[in-house]
Structure formats: structure tokens, C-alpha cells
């Protein structure tokens, strides 16, 4: 028995509803946190931060955000790219307007502004459902991108229409711009990621989360048992957009440093984040991380294997990459339609029974 819950009893309800009721899981969670916070910042270099950790952490936030909307509340949205753009541009305007204020505040405010925009574009969800809604959110995606491209106020009238993150700090540590230390950028993103995960978890385990899930599973029944669909859907849009906005702000300010809206926050971004949560597992915070890891790391990994180890031509590797990622997505879905998170859950269920099935 490698994995057991025997002897793990909860005697109070709070204990029973904690995130990791099984002691083994809890310890593992602490261990991961310890490594992420205490060890990694000291061993990390530019490559790892910029190619692996930062995209992973930032996409995780976006995935958590979208998962709240799609996975928990069942409102399929393809506007993620547009909302990330709102976060990014809000952050840019704040950074340039109030240079002395801490980046921390700017990023949070960007989230808040995005939440507002999210609510606005969430309004049609009251009438439009399912794939129709998904396609309708594309209206937000295309309109927002167009607007940021068109209205020069958003990019401070720069000639090219690009926005560049000037150097800013928080608590005296440089966070944006080219002179940022790898560890500082990493830690800054990590704080947001952990906070997002915890907040998302708290929201989803309580009554808010249940309202969302009820709407997702059967909106009519939910309304009849007392869920106000307007409120539930709009809060989901708000909370989701808040996280997505934060991730957009980080994506622009910390990760890329310069952004051209149509390219960075285009429709492909919306799809990418959606893929992450489906692959990872709808309605699962862990799944958001798993999905982000899968789609950020796998291509890098395949590239390293193909190009660096086997020395194949880059284009063949890139094409094979597509083939493999595509095939893996399909294989995963066939093995477990509910994503990596569910796969993990079932694996644990099996482990628990191991070595005596049934």
C-alpha cells in the first residue's frame, strides 16, 4: 500500500472540507510549496524562468480564471485573449500614469478593471448558451483586440502601436524591464499564482462555487432551487476575468515586456487557454496547473528532444510536434475524457486499492 487513507479520520466538518483531507496529499502539497518558494529562486536562471516557469505560472493563472468560468460555471468563453489584453493594457496605462506606485497594486488593479469588462461581456450569457455563447464571446475577443489596436490612447500614441513595459519595481526590487533578475520575476509571478489558486479554491469550495456548479450542471434546476442565475453568472465572469486580467498584466509586464495586441492576445491565445483547462480537467484547480504544464512544457520538451537530442531539422520537429500534441490530446481524451485531473484522481483511487483491486 503506497497510498493510503486508512487511519486518516476527520472529526470536524472544517477538517473534512479542507483542500487535502488525506495527510499524504497534504504533505506533498507543502513539499511542493517549499520547493517552489524556498529552493527554486536560488537555483534558477534566465532560461528556466523565461522559457518554462514564467509562462507556466502565468498561464496557470489564466487557466484558473477560465476554469472558474468554463469548468465551474459552464459558460464556455473564447474571449480569454481579449480579456488578457484588457489586463495588459490596463497595467500599461497604470504603469505609465503612476510610475511610483508599486507594481503589485498595478497588477491587482488591472485584474479589477478586467473584471469590470468581463461583466460587461458576460451579460449576453443570460440568454445565450453553450456553443452559441462560446462563439458570442469571440465578439469580445475581436472587438477588444481591434480597439486596442485602433485607439492610440491605449498605447500612449506610440508610433508602432506596441506597448513596452518600462522599468518598475515593488518594495524596491525591480520587477519589470530588462534589468529584472530572474528570481525576482519568478517570485513575483509565483506569489500571484499561489494566491490565485488559494482564492479560487476557497471560492469554489463554498456556496459561491456550488452556485456556479449548479448553473453549469443544470441551469434551470439551479434557478428553481434558488440560485439567481444573473448574479451567479456575472460573478463567475467577474472573478474569472479578474484572474485572466492579472495573468494578462503579468504576461505583458513581466514576461514579454513588449506586446503587440493582435499577435500576442489574438484568438489563438483564447484557444490555448481553453485547451489547457480541457486537457487538465474542467472544474479542477489542479487541472488548471496540469493543463498549463502540459501545453507549455510538452512543446518545449518535444523540441528539445527532437532538435537537440536527435538533431532533426526544426521544421520536421515542429510539424511532428503538432502531430504528437494533437495525438496526445486525443489519446488523453479517449483514456479519460475528464482530463488529467480526473486521470490523477482515478490513479489514486486505484492506488488506494492496490494491490488488491475490488
Amino acid at each position, binding site marked *: 500500500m503506497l497510498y493510503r487513507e486508512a487511519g486518516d479520520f476527520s472529526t470536524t466538518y472544517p477538517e473534512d472540507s479542507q483542500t487535502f483531507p488525506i495527510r499524504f496529499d497534504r504533505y506533498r502539497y507543502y513539499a511542493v510549496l517549499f520547493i517552489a518558494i524556498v529552493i527554486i529562486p536560488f537555483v534558477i536562471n*534566465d*532560461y528556466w524562468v*523565461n*522559457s518554462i516557469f514564467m*509562462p507556466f505560472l502565468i498561464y496557470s493563472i489564466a487557466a484558473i480564471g477560465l476554469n472558474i468560468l468554463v469548468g465551474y460555471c459552464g459558460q464556455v468563453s473564447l474571449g480569454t485573449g481579449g480579456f488578457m489584453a484588457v489586463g495588459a493594457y490596463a497595467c500599461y496605462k497604470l504603469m505609465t500614469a503612476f510610475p511610483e506606485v508599486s507594481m503589485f497594486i498595478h497588477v491587482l488593479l488591472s485584474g479589477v478593471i478586467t473584471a469590470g469588462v468581463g461583466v460587461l461581456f458576460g451579460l449576453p450569457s443570460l440568454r445565450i448558451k453553450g456553443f452559441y455563447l462560446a462563439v458570442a464571446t469571440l465578439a469580445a475577443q475581436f472587438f477588444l483586440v*481591434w480597439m486596442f*489596436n485602433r485607439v492610440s490612447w491605449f498605447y500612449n500614441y*506610440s*508610433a*508602432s*502601436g*506596441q506597448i*513596452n513595459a*518600462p*522599468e518598475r519595481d515593488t518594495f524596491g526590487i525591480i520587477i519589470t*524591464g*530588462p*534589468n529584472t533578475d530572474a528570481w525576482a520575476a519568478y517570485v513575483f509571478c509565483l506569489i500571484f499564482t499561489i494566491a490565485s489558486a488559494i482564492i479560487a479554491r476557497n471560492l469554489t469550495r463554498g456556496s459561491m462555487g456550488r452556485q456556479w456548479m449548479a448553473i453549469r450542471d443544470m441551469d434551470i434546476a439551479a434557478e428553481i432551487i434558488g440560485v439567481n442565475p444573473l448574479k451567479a453568472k456575472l460573478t463567475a465572469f467577474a472573478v474569472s476575468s479578474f484572474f485572466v486580467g492579472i495573468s494578462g498584466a503579468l504576461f505583458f509586464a513581466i*514576461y*514579454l*515586456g*513588449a*506586446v*503587440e495586441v*493582435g*499577435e*500576442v492576445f*489574438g484568438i489563438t491565445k483564447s484557444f490555448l487557454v481553453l485547451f489547457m483547462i480541457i486537457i487538465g480537467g474542467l472544474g479542477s484547480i489542479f487541472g488548471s496547473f496540469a493543463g498549463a504544464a502540459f501545453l507549455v512544457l510538452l512543446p*518545449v520538451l518535444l*523540441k528539445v528532444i527532437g*532538435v537537440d537530442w536527435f538533431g532533426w*531539422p*526544426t*521544421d520536421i*520537429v*515542429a*510539424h511532428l510536434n*503538432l502531430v504528437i500534441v494533437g495525438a496526445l490530446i486525443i489519446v488523453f481524451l479517449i483514456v479519460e475524457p475528464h482530463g488529467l485531473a480526473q486521470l490523477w484522481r482515478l490513479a489514486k483511487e486505484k492506488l488506494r486499492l492496490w494491490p488488491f483491486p475490488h
Partner: protein
Amino acid sequence: DLVFPSLSYRTGPYAANGIPFADGYADYFTLLNERDGGIGGVMTRVPECETGYNTEKGVECYESTKGEGALVYQPLSTGITYQLIPKATADGIPVHSMGYGRTSAKDGTVFRNIFNYPANYWDGASFAIKHLLDVNDGSLEGKKIALVYHNSAYGKEPIRTLEELSEKHGFELMLLAVDHPGQEQKSQWLQIRRERPDNVIMYGWGVMNQVAIQEAANIRFPMENFIGIWWSGSENDVRPAGAAADGYKALAFHNVGSDFPVFDDIQKYVVDAGKAAGAGDQIGTVLYNRGLYAAMLAAEAARTAQEIHGVAEITAPMMRDGMEALKITEEKMAALGLPGFGPAFEVSCENHGGGGFVAMAQWSGTNDQWTLISDYEQSDQDVIGPLIAEDAAAFAAENNITPGCD
């Protein structure tokens, strides 16, 4: 060895353009290795990294290759260039955005590590107008000129310049944005048909070029009045329209065709030896030549750096010095087997952009080839100079840079 990473794109929406460029870039270095044993006795290496014309992957590529001792980056995308400007500056690695990227990077006192010689987008716009002036006997008064542009940072680059020029020469400017990817341009071209501009200038990329040329042919817009920037002037762009594209013009900052001695060497040392980067069928195409030209400029800069610093195994900062001291002369090009292939120019600390010499090429559908129809001429530096200074100053102010040379 000397490392020249190639951030290429052989997949995605712009693959058709990325492939020949990357082939040309790689083949030239292979040639140097095979024929001369590298540069100054040190072998070169061209690690390739696929960006898919995507900024994030571009960043990933940059990060993953910079550790190998990369000497210079050629990102082949304005978007990625913008990402790399601060990063590369901080890392002390030069970036060569040849004929793209941020135009004001020409001001080397602000953009210490960024180079965009021999010509930039504003040179292109200015030269196009200059060409039209020539064709119209020196006056554009009362004419109407339309700009069809890719609705992105890249496409928007020439607008400022054209606006200045329209004031100066008294022509009317009409702006037509095309969103990515640009498969549907009916509205834009119907409008052109209605408003009958005398000339159309295009800043396009990828499928947008093919569709625009096709649509222009559909509305019977006279092709010789249609001028594309150099990224809208490859074989890929005109062939789908067939014979209808005959007479279409495009800007160029280097020569076309494979009628240069260096191509014989490439055939001999690279293609026949089975060492070609691609299938070998791209040689002599516009974009292949551009890749090759970029490689040649990088190699010459490296050679210059070796001379300045007296070491063969140069580092990125040395490479930067080499680039800043680069001198391309007719003789040098002839010696390299590329006589008259590009304009002669010089780089200095104040000027990272060369002379801004541009030529006009024209497509002949019947011969299925491009030909240069003008000499290299300098663009209108009176208009461009101040614009560059202004933009660079703004950047310097925003980023706390004190302009200057050391």
C-alpha cells in the same frame, strides 16, 4: 565556434516566407565553413529555432540559444524584435533587424545593440514616393495614393512618414487596414476601385499579399501603379495571381536572381554536397537571397569584429563593435562573389541603419522572375531623420537611457 542562431519559421501562417529566408541564412554559413573553413579560421554554427512567427516562441528561442554564445539575432519578425530590444540590450547581444523592426533603432546612440541596416520601413515608404515622383515628372500634386497595410505594428510603421510626405508633396493619402490573416479584402479593393487612387502602396505579409495582388488584378488595377514593400515582393506573393500580376512592383534593398558567382559556390559546396538546409529549390528566390544577404552581412561584421579586437573567437559584445564598424563597399561585395548585390553603406554609432538605399524591382509574369528596374537610391533623409530622432528620444526618455556613444 561562432554561433549565429537562426530564429526561423517553417510552420504556421508565414511558413512559406520563413523557409527560403532560413535556407539562405543557413546555406551561406555552410558555404563559409565548407569553402573557407569558417570566418577567420573559426567554424560557424547556425542553431535553428522554430518561432512560428510567434512572439512567445521567439522569446523561448532567444532564451534557449543565447547561452550557446550567440553572436547576433535575426528574429525575422517585428513583433519578436520588439521583445528582444530590451532583453538583448540587457544581455549585450546585438540584434540585426534587417529591413524590419523598430525603425528608430537606426539611432545607435539610443539603441546601442540594435541594428537595422541597410534600410528600414521609413526608407521604404520614402523611396516608394520618390519613385512615384520620378514616374510622375517630379510632382504628386493632387494625386491620390492608397496605403494597404497589415493591421499590426509592422503595417502601421510607414503611416507617419507617408503623412509627412503627403504634406510635403501635396498628395492625398488614403489608409486601408487589413486584419490578420487578410484572406478577405473585398471591401478594401472595392473602395480602391471606387476612389481610383493613382497608386497603391502595400505593407503586407503572408496570405495578405497574395490576396491583395489577386484582388488588384480582379478590379483591373494597373499593376505598375501598385508598389509593395520588400516583404510583399517575393515569388510567393505574385505567382498565385498568375499572369495577372505582371508589372507589379516591389521595393528591394538587395539584388534578385542567382546570377552571382557565389551561387556557383553554393551549388558546389553546399547543394551538391548534400548540405543544403532546405530542399535546394529555393535558391535564387527573393527571400532566399535576403537570407543569404543577412548571413553575408553578419559574417562580414564578425570579420570586422575579429579585426578590431584581434581575436578569432569573438563574443557578442565584440560582434556588436564589429557591426557598428561595418563597411560594405562594392569591392568587398565583388570579392565575396556578390558584385552589386546590395548598396554600399557604412554603419556608425550614430547611424545603425546604413544609408537607406533602396531600389525598385518589378515582376514579369511572362519570364516568371523579378528584375531590378532602378538603381539604389537614397530615401528622403530630410523627412526621416527628424522622425527617427523624435521617436528615439521618446524611447530614451521612457527607459531612462542617456543617448551617447562611448
